[in-house]
């Protein structure tokens, strides 16, 4: 086409339309700024909506149904063996994603946020070039970098679409139900997708380099999951390394090194879930003053401003907990700062949820971190075998724990393993953010019978007397 390069101007340009990017764009638009988002995807949502949180939770819900139906047999109800229709599963996943993606497009339009499909590269501290798009250049007053992260490859391999060595993206495409699936990495991605595939019928082997599933999470919280997964996965190899992966027509030959009897095994498919790295390549950061830290994350201050005054960065690309809700908050803060508000990221409890069965959720200080830092704390635990509600659901595999500052009696951290901890953890978040004392949590009435009672009772144990558990005898 013979036409001049189209230069557009924008007050706020957001690069990347995941939860960090679209939250930033929406907040900026709500504050009266003129906003455009550039992303290679047509509709907003990012990894979270298309290749992460949403599809995985869609499948995990079904895995839970299968599991519950199976469990009901011991309670007097027997369902037949589930029939699995992979096309039906994929269709359902696509419907879920479509509904949410269209919702985000609608929200963008109604806010006047311009969605530009294309790949943006900085040319300088105030312009980007857009590839594969009608718009060739955008000059901006402020940019928000929200390009997220990508799965880390197995050394020497690249993920190929349709290949037997998959990243989480490939696994969520649900190509088939492999007879044997190997999962590299005992982090939440490996555990969640392993749970999905196991419930669909795969025999799952999980390999973890360290001596613990979910490294970094308190061991007592992981223990109930570890016990449960022993019956769900075929093998869990800790302290084990995958030395080589050789893909061929019929499967992948794997060499393991560590605590394994058979070091050479063959799997139909392999899921590599060993972490994610920030997506800072092909963005043209070299043409700006943006700097990266030693781990490759963009350096930002507490207002999410990079080392380039005009450019902000939010979400996975700046590191910390690589979670959608953290990105969302950061996006809002960046937008507010650009609009002249004195906002800053001063969050004290970022919640994390692992959607395994049982689920694990935590927020604030972990016990391990507190011990490492020699902080004077008291830890109280309430095992779910004492919970009435957990008993009614046949789900006694759970634990609620609270980490309390010994001096101020303030709640510093909460960790919960068990059913539906995704909903329970927010009480802990609110408590920590509000500076609540353990006493505050104990004195709030928790409805009976619910799993939330476990939080109230844990706090009661700290005070010296809890209703459904006999603890240390304090007279308070």
């Amino acid at each position, binding site marked *: 086409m013979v036409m001049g390069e189209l230069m557009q101007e924008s007050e706020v340009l957001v690069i990347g339309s995941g939860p960090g990017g679209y939250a930033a764009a929406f907040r900026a638009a709500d504050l009266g700024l003129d906003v455009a988002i550039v992303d290679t995807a047509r509709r907003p949502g990012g990894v979270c909506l298309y290749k992460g949180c949403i599809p995985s939770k869609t499948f995990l819900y079904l895995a839970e149904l299968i599991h519950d139906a199976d469990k009901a047999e011991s309670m007097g109800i027997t369902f037949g063996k589930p029939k699995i229709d992979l096309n039906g599963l994929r269709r359902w996943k696509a419907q879920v994603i479509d509904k949410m993606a269209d919702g985000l497009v609608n929200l963008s339009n109604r806010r006047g946020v311009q969605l530009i499909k294309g790949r943006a590269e900085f040319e300088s501290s105030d312009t980007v070039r857009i590839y594969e798009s009608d718009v060739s250049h955008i000059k901006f007053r402020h940019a928000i970098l929200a390009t997220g992260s990508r799965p880390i490859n197995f050394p020497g391999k690249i993920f190929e679409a349709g290949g037997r060595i998959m990243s989480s993206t490939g696994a969520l495409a649900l190509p088939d139900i492999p007879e044997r699936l190997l999962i590299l990495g005992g*982090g939440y*991605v490996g555990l969640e997708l392993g749970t999905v595939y196991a419930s669909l019928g795969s025999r799952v082997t999980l390999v973890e380099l360290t*001596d613990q599933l979910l490294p970094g999470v308190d061991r007592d919280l992981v223990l109930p999951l570890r016990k449960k997964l022993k019956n769900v996965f075929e093998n869990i190899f800790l302290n084990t390394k995958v030395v080589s992966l050789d893909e061929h027509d019929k499967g992948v030959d794997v060499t393991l090194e560590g605590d394994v009897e058979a070091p050479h095994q063959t799997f139909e498919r392999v899921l590599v879930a060993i*972490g994610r*790295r920030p997506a800072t390549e092909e963005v043209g950061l070299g043409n700006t003053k943006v700097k990266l830290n030693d781990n490759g994350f963009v350096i930002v201050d507490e207002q999410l401003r990079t080392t380039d005054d005009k450019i902000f960065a939010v979400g996975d690309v700046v590191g910390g907990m690589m979670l959608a809700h953290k990105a969302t908050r950061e996006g809002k803060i960046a937008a507010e700062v650009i609009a002249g508000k*004195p906002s800053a990221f001063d969050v*004290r409890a970022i919640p*994390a949820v692992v959607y395994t069965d049982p689920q694990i959720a935590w927020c604030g200080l972990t016990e391990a971190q507190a011990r490492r830092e020699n902080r004077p704390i008291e830890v109280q635990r309430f095992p779910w075998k004492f919970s009435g509600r957990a008993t009614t659901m046949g789900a006694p595999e759970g634990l609620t724990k609270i980490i309390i500052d010994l001096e101020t009696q303030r709640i510093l951290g909460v960790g919960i393993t068990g059913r539906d901890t995704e909903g329970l953890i927010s009480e802990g978040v609110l408590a920590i953010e509000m500076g609540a004392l353990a006493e505050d949590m104990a004195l709030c009435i928790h409805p009976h019978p619910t799993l939330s009672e476990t939080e109230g009772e844990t706090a009661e144990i700290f005070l010296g007397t809890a209703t459904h558990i006999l603890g240390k005898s304090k007279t308070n």
Partner: protein
Amino acid sequence: MTRSFKLPDLGEGVHEGEILAVLVSVGQKVKEGDIILEVETDKAAVEIPSPYTGTVNEIFVQTGDIVKVGKAIMTFSNGEKAEQPPAEKIVEKPETPVDEAKVVDQTLPTREGGPVPASPATRRLARELGVNLHLVAPSGPAGLVTADDVRAFADDEKSVPKTTESPPAAAEEIKPSDISVPSLPDFTKWGEVERIPFRSIRRATGKQMAVAWSQIPHVNSQDVVDVTKLEAFRQKHKAEIEAGGGKLTVTVFALKAVATALKMYPNFNATLDTANNDIIIKHYYNIGVAVNTDRGLIVPVVRDVDRKSIKELAVELSDLVDRTRNRKTTLEEMQGGTFTITNAGAMGGGFFAPIINHPEVAILGIGQARMQPVVREKGADDYEIVPRLIMPIVLCIDHRVLDGADAIKFLKVLVETLEDPDELLMSMV
């Protein structure tokens, strides 16, 4: 058992103090009552005794720190075992970079110097009002800072006397915040600079003077006193007073003269209550005396001046000045003044116009007495020039409460009493 010691309440209206000295060190044994800290507040230097007998475990402050009331300063152990949670051995693996399951650094409440307990909405409010949460005195349980605390701090920062009710239009105050101060240029452009913290007494003085100067319409009225006779009187009785432990200075006479004048003109012994449109007249005569110290200007108060003899005042004042210079005065001794005298004479000053010590309504400045030629009437149309010891005095008044005519009358009393010691003695009756 470990016990934490927090900076105690140092007196009314005192929210923070500067640590002048930490007199103990970690591991040191202390007895209850031993002095462990010297803290300087806006108003006085205070020695803080240990509330416990035991061993110092941790010290969280150092000399020069500005510490809020209620902030933990140190911990003590009393020999009993500290209540420790059961030690669980948790072996941590080496960190692997960019592991998605890794709990990466969260922003967490840390004990000292860490986040201040406050709800997210309070934290946002603090940012909006530009308040540093670390400086706010908490009122919530276990040191929780509330939104009200933040608002109160922000109001306080504006240095405006708080009014409980909305003031009637008649007494509208000009808030310093109404006038925006332009930001400072980068002075390093023109040469080397140094930054010295604006703290403690210097800062308190600055705040007090800014309030006084912006709130009070000042008028100053000057006169001179022939103190030749007074000086003779002073020389004559100096030794006798000194034997009694006092110092017979011009300020001592001035105290007495001012008390006399205040009794005759009670409107000078007053405060303007702008919130309620009242002039508060005080029926006690507590006179502040500005004392120059190596830390700055401090104004201890001599109480009930009208009821004390010259000799008593001489003893009391010299003790008060000594203790002020040695940081030994208590907060109470800095409070409750009704009028202030500032005598620059000893340092050689002449005429100067001091700023009224808000919320008082007048201040007397005294300059150095010098021998000067004075024209005197010998008889009808017959004049002579004689050397006399002449002392300049300046009276500054709050023109909202007092007028120039009042000032002249007040000065006249001072001049008459100070010129003639007999008059002064008579007025004391």
